[in-house]
């Protein structure tokens, strides 16, 4: 396995792609999100699995995103996601509201290669009312009178996340954050940034194998040290609350966000650090 570079990885994401991202508590690749901003990606359709956070707000603010399908966009303790909120108000972003288990279920249908899967709940919610692609049928295994929602399979073009390490075979290890495995399984391609590449094969180690995503599902690996920052990476490094709070403050306005981008994404120092 030969790792690619972060900027080459960003270049391989075409404008308009449907891109699945994990939330801030589950290993998003902030490094690749910043590289996508630098490459000037446009028209991306984001899928929050099952919610979206810092990376999504950054991409929306930088004008990279046309649509988002998600169960929420939030900066956690730092509050509402400012560029997402501004884009909704301005009407410049198509938002497809979802609910967490529906995202998982649509991806699981794609994992299995079946056209749809049912899910309980949802009936009576305006989320369902605004989803013409979701159907209500009568449970064919009951005696009638048991409505249940069917959700179509959802196959993202690209899964993007950050893992702790890759091995010589191109397997990646990220422990128990298995939603990343779900999106890797369900997507056409998976682009994974890692802290480091190590020799050997994780699948030969019984203790590492359960937290590994098989190279079958991994299209490209790029090394990006501290690639999840400011988000936490398992027990490798913690959440940088001060960095996110500073972002939340500056990104309240368009001008503040532009200043933040210049400093943290476009400056030669910021780009070199990725």
């Amino acid at each position, binding site marked *: 396995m030969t790792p690619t570079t972060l900027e080459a990885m960003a270049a391989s994401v075409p404008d308009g792609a449907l891109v699945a991202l994990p939330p801030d508590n589950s290993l998003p690749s902030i490094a690749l999100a910043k590289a996508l901003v630098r490459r000037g990606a446009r028209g991306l359709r984001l899928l929050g699995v099952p919610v979206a956070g810092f990376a999504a707000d950054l991409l929306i603010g930088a004008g990279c995103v046309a649509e988002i399908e998600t*169960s929420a966009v939030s900066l956690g303790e730092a509050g509402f996601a400012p560029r997402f909120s501004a884009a909704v108000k301005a009407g410049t972003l198509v938002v497809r509201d979802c609910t967490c*288990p529906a995202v998982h279920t649509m991806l699981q249908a794609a994992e299995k290669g079946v056209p749809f899967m049912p899910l309980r709940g949802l009936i*009576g919610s305006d989320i369902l009312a605004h989803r013409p692609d979701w159907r209500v049928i009568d449970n064919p295994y009951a005696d009638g009178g048991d409505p249940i929602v069917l959700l179509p399979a959802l196959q993202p073009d690209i899964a993007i996340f950050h893992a702790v390490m890759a091995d010589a075979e191109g397997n990646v290890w990220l422990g128990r954050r298995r939603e990343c495995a779900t999106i890797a399984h369900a997507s056409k391609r998976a682009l994974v940034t890692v802290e480091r590449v190590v020799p050997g094969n994780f699948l030969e180690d019984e203790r590492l194998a359960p937290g590994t995503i098989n190279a079958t599902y991994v299209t490209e690996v790029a090394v990006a040290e501290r690639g999840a920052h400011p988000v936490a990476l398992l027990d490798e490094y913690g959440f940088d609350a001060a960095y996110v709070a500073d972002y939340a403050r500056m990104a309240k306005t368009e001008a503040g966000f532009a200043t933040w981008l210049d400093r943290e994404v476009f400056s030669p120092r910021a780009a070199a650090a990725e």
Partner: protein
Amino acid sequence: MSDIRPEERLAAALARLIIDPAAPPARHIAVGAASPLPAAACWLVRKQGHPVRLSLLHRRSGNPFTEGTRELFDLTGQGRIDLFFLGGGQIDGQANLNLVGTGEWPGREVRFPGSFGSAFMYVMAHRTILFREEHSPRVFVEKVDNISAPGVNAPGVFRRGHAQALVTGKCVFRFHPERARFSLLSLHPGETVESIRAATGFDFDVPAEVPRTPDPTPEELALLRGPVCDEMLETYPEFCARVFNRKAAA
């Protein structure tokens, strides 16, 4: 015992609802993105010796699930989550929750973060305790602008549980799913039926006698300030510093 903080009273009120013998048993409780107070109430119940399993979804280290976050929803789908907590940017008199936003869909006036798992959890958990500290007519409205999760469903729609109660900064309401209405259960100190009416946009039932929300007992306060705070310190450092005046070790 020093002065009781409002948060301590709310945590004790939530804990009493959790162990309410009239409600289905709370064997496995999940606490999501809600405020730290539901987590404090759950820890209080645990430290009182009740054998409940707590799955805290926002712990910074560790995580109760090994198959990803879908495991919470799979457990709930099977009926293995007894109690969940939800809030809302708007909550109406039929216990409908709006976590999407106000104005036209999808929240063109004020956009909230989003519905999270509410459209599923509210229907599929055995019961839900609603918690929203801000008690004002902008939060408690006659009819929510958008329904993230419905308070009740039409007959024939599969639904495992409903709201048990709504705990606010001013009072506790009980919810009656059979008539889709709240009734006043207790008033926090300083509140009257009239002050609750003035702060609430929806109509609710008032029994002949409305008791005061009890003070936490000295035993509850000692648990909250000691072992409960110890458990919360890592996940909610800001909350513990503010309420219990305790800082995490550097």
